[in-house]
């Protein structure tokens, strides 16, 4: 299990224990984490699962694919060159056992 923390703008934090191979988007949607939508079902088509990864957890994450790169240019809240990722492309156990992300104010 990996520990995933979703930090919200109001200071609230959702902390989830996530099975290996499960994406941040799926974990968030399944558990009702506010602000993560996942409208396209994890196909990197919609950019509604945008998160800002906290800097100390960036190392070891999988590289940004061409699909993800294009969608990150279309996020509702501004992209952060270093920290922005799509939650559907980051999976527990693939580069981290623990991760903390900030949830953007808007996704659409």
């Amino acid at each position, binding site marked *: 299990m990996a520990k995933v923390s979703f930090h919200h703008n109001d200071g609230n934090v959702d902390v989830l224990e996530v099975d290996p*191979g499960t994406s941040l988007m*799926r974990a968030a*949607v*399944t*558990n*009702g984490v506010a602000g993560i939508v*996942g*409208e*396209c*079902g*994890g*196909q*990197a*088509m*919609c950019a509604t699962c945008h998160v800002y990864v906290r800097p100390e957890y960036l190392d070891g994450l999988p590289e940004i694919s*061409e*699909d993800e*790169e*294009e*969608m990150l*240019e*279309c996020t509702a809240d501004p992209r952060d060159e270093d920290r922005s990722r799509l939650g559907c492309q980051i999976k527990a156990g693939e580069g981290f056992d623990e991760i903390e992300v900030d949830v953007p104010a808007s996704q*659409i």
Partner: protein
Amino acid sequence: MTAAPSTPSNAQDQPNPQNIVIVGNGQAGIQLVDSLRKEGYAGTITVIGEETHFPYQRPPLSKDFMAADKEPKPLPLRAEKFFTDNDVDSRLGVQVTSIDRAGHTVELSDESSISYTTLVLATGAANRELNVPGSDLQGIYGLRTLADAEAVHARLDTVRSVVVIGAGFIGLEFAAAARKRGLDVTVLEYADRPMARALSPVMGNWFAQAHLNMGVDLRLGEGIASFTGGGSVDSEGGHVAAAVSTTGETYPADMVLVGIGVIPRTELAEQAGLAVSNGITVDSAMRTDDEDIYALGDCANYPSHHAEARTRLESVQNATDQARHTAKSILDTHDAGRDYTELPWFWSTQGDLRLQIAGIAHPDDETVLRGNPDNGKFSVFCFRNGRLAAVESVNQPADHMAARRILAQERNLTPEQAADLEFDFKAYSKAAAAGV
């Protein structure tokens, strides 16, 4: 048409909706719940789903869900907590059996009834079914619901040869997934190219070759004539053993997947006397010819700004964008006009091929290629009357996103620019989106 279209509404004339009933808890219905609350609606919401399962996403069912390496899990559309947090009365495993328009109530299959001030039909579509001889044999599946997907997935572990009827999106997504599992896959398609209804001929033909290269035995111009049974399963009427095509060929089939399109679920609307023509007829605000009833998503036939014609689309984008629009129509909170004008876009994942479409292509559009099809990364630009109408991309997400920006802004480019790789399409699209 059974009645004149309703006139555009005016905020002051509308009663404040207090009791909204949504029939259908798919992508459209659930997004509408979300959007109504986001728009500030504080009245009651009842959402009725005929499946017993909690609302889930359908698109992965024909793709990731069919992979061999894991126990598949459906992806919920929202968590259970969403429904309690938003004070939504979610009814599962129950159908609406009739609408009483005069009395503003719906009757349910559990013999209860619910009154509404606004009713929304988000009833979706049902799979078209085959009626050739042998269609009732065991081992012949459709693929739409989670129950369908679970049955198919369970069956895939035990079969060698699969016959797919219909080379549309669902059939080909499934065919590619089955090939990835090492199964023998035959696809029978009556038309002379795959996905003929949705894709330009050049892209359709490219996909035909790509599937042959994947090892799919794709048979074009060859429909299904009948199924024959075998004795492998002790079920009534027997189990499918082979598919016989319209040209008389016989293909062994341990299982059959039927993907021959869908029929919009309009039966409730028809019973209630609402206008129906290839879907429930709505205006550009998603309202039917009854001013208290709306329809959206797969079941709705709407005046499409981009297609310049009445259209019915089956896609996530169509369902969710129309839901956001419908919420504003119901609550009269449109700030950018009541006409729905969102650009349609689509995607399909077939093995390693990712098809993305922006706009709506017609078979007779003038087409221009950008990039080299032999590399498996290219786009087809479709022009109609000298204007860019649609862009189809394979493994070329930058072109797709640029096309969405250009088409949404209704900006044009020339066929020469489209074909010219020196022309910076992405930068051009961003400038267009920024209003330059």
